[in-house]
C-alpha cells in the first residue's frame, strides 16, 4: 500500500500541486489576523480576540479552507485520471480496483491532513508574531493554550481531511465532474457560516462529526462500488 501511495504522488503534476498548497498556506497564514483586526474589529457579538483559547475557534473555522484543497486533490487523483484515461493504466495492472482506490484515498487523506496541519502551525506562528507587535489577541498564550492548540490542530486536520471526501463518490468517481466537486466543497467549507447567516443554531463540533461521517460513507461507497461505476 505504501508503494501505491508513493506512486500516486509521483504521477501527479507536483509543481502545480505544490504551488497550489503554497497559495493556501500564504492566504490562511494571514487570515486570522485579518479577521481579528479588520473584519471582526467592530463586531460586538464576537469575542475571538479576548484570549488565545477563543482565537483558536476562529483558527479552526479558517482551516476548513483545506476542504477545497481536498476537492482539488480529488480532481487530480480521480477525475483527471478518468478524463485523461490514465485510470485505464492503473486498471490494467494486477491490482484490484478496490486497492487502487484505497491507495488514492489514503494519498488524498495524507496530503490534506499534512497540509492542513502545516497551515495550522504557520497561521499559529504568524498570528502570535503579529500579536507581539500590534496586539491582536488579549493576553499571552499559556502552556495549556499551546497544548490545546496542538491537539486541536491534529484532530481538526484529520476532520478536514475526512470532510473533504464528501464529494468523492458522487462527483469524483460516479459523475467525474470537476465543477460540482468544487461547489460541493465550497458549500461544506462555508456551511457553518451559512448556518450563522440564516440564524440556524448549530453545534459546530456536532456539525463536523456529521460531515465527517458523510465523508466516511462517501469513501466506503467509492471503494465498495468502484467495480459497478468505475469502468472507463
Amino acid at each position, binding site marked *: 500500500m505504501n508503494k501505491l501511495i508513493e*506512486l500516486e504522488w509521483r504521477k501527479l503534476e507536483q509543481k502545480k500541486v505544490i504551488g497550489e498548497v503554497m497559495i493556501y498556506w500564504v492566504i490562511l497564514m494571514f487570515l486570522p489576523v485579518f479577521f481579528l483586526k479588520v473584519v471582526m474589529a467592530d463586531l460586538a457579538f464576537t469575542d475571538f480576540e479576548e484570549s488565545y483559547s477563543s482565537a483558536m475557534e476562529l483558527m479552526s473555522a479558517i482551516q476548513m479552507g483545506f476542504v477545497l484543497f481536498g476537492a482539488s486533490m480529488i480532481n487530480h487523483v480521480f477525475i483527471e485520471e478518468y478524463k485523461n484515461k490514465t485510470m485505464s493504466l492503473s486498471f*490494467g495492472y494486477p491490482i484490484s480496483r478496490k486497492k487502487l482506490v484505497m491507495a488514492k484515498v489514503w494519498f488524498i487523506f495524507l496530503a490534506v491532513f499534512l497540509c492542513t496541519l502545516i497551515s495550522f502551525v504557520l497561521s499559529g506562528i504568524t498570528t502570535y508574531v503579529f500579536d507581539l507587535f500590534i496586539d491582536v489577541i488579549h493576553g499571552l498564550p499559556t502552556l495549556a493554550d499551546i497544548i490545546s492548540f496542538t491537539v486541536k490542530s491534529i484532530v481538526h486536520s484529520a476532520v478536514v481531511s475526512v470532510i473533504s471526501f464528501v464529494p468523492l463518490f458522487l462527483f469524483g468517481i460516479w459523475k467525474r465532474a470537476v465543477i460540482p466537486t468544487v461547489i460541493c466543497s465550497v458549500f461544506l467549507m462555508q456551511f457553518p457560516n451559512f448556518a450563522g447567516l440564516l440564524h440556524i443554531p448549530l453545534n459546530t463540533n456536532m456539525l463536523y462529526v456529521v460531515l465527517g461521517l458523510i465523508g466516511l460513507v462517501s469513501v466506503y461507497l467509492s471503494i465498495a462500488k468502484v467495480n459497478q461505476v468505475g469502468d472507463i
Partner: protein
Amino acid sequence: MSDVIRTYELTKTVKGKTITSNVNLTVKKGETYGLLGPNGAGKTTIMKMLTGLIIPTSGEIMLFGKKFTESAKDGLKRVGSIIEYPIFFEHLTAMENLRIHCEYLGFYDGKAITQALDMVNLHGIDDKKVKDFSLGMKQRLGIVRAMITKPELIVLDEPTNGLDPIGIKDMRELIRMLNKEYGITFLLSSHILGEIEQMADRIGMIQHGKLVNEVALADIQKLRTDYIELVTSNVQKTVYILEHKLQISNIKIVKDTRIRVYDTARSTSDISKTLISNDIEIEEIQKHTSTLEDYFYHQIQGGDKFE
C-alpha cells in the same frame, strides 16, 4: 499447444445495449491471433475485458489457464497491452512513465528500459515530456511499455494506427520478431484485412459483438480460388457461348451483367477472342484471385464490407 486466453460466453452490456455477446475465443500459446471486424464491432471491448479495463457483464475469462476476475488479476503480470491508443502521463517524461509502469508491476530492471527503447529506435528522449511526442513516437513508446516487463502475451488494439508507412513496416517486423524469437503470443485487432493478413496466424471475425468465426490463415489460403470475371450486356448469350463453344461449365452470374468463370483452364484471351467472334460486346474482362477480403465478405453476409 496450451491456451493463453480462453473465454466462455463473454458478454458486455452497457445501459441495456449489448456490446459483445457470448464470445468464445481461444488464443493459443505462441500464435499471433487477429481480431478482425468493422469499426464498432466490439473488438476493443473484448480486449478491454481481457486486460481488466472493463468488467464483463457475464461469462468467464481464463488467462494462462487460470480464472481471471477483478479480484484475481495476477495473470496481468504476464500481459503487455495497448488498448485504443497509448495513454501516458503526458506531463511526465518517457523514462518517468516507464519507471512508474515497471514499479506497478513490481519489475525492477533498469537495463530493460534502455534495451526496449533501442529495439524501437527511440533515442534521446530521456528528458522529453510525453506531451511533446508525435503520435508515432507515442505508439513506439506504448510498444516499449507493453514489452518492457517481458510479457508472455501482448494485446495490441489497432497497432498501426497513426503510424507512417515506415512505422507500419517497423511495427509489423517488430511483432513478427517478438513472436518468432521470443515466443510472445500476440492478440491484435484491426478493421483492415491486409494488415491482419500480414501478421496473424489465426483470425477471429467479430460482427455486431459476436465472434462469427475463428479460422487459421493457412486454411483460408487453401480455399483461395482463381476466376475470370467479365462484364457484358448480353449475359444469356455469353453464358451459352461459354458453355457450348468453350465447354466451360463452372460459371456463376454474379450480377445482371457480371459473370465469373471458375474454369481457369481457359485463358482470358481465349474467352475474349471467342466472345468477340460471336458478336458479344465485352465491357470488361479480368483474371482475379479471390482474396481474404472475399472470404470474409462471404462469411459476414449482409455485414459491412471491410476497407
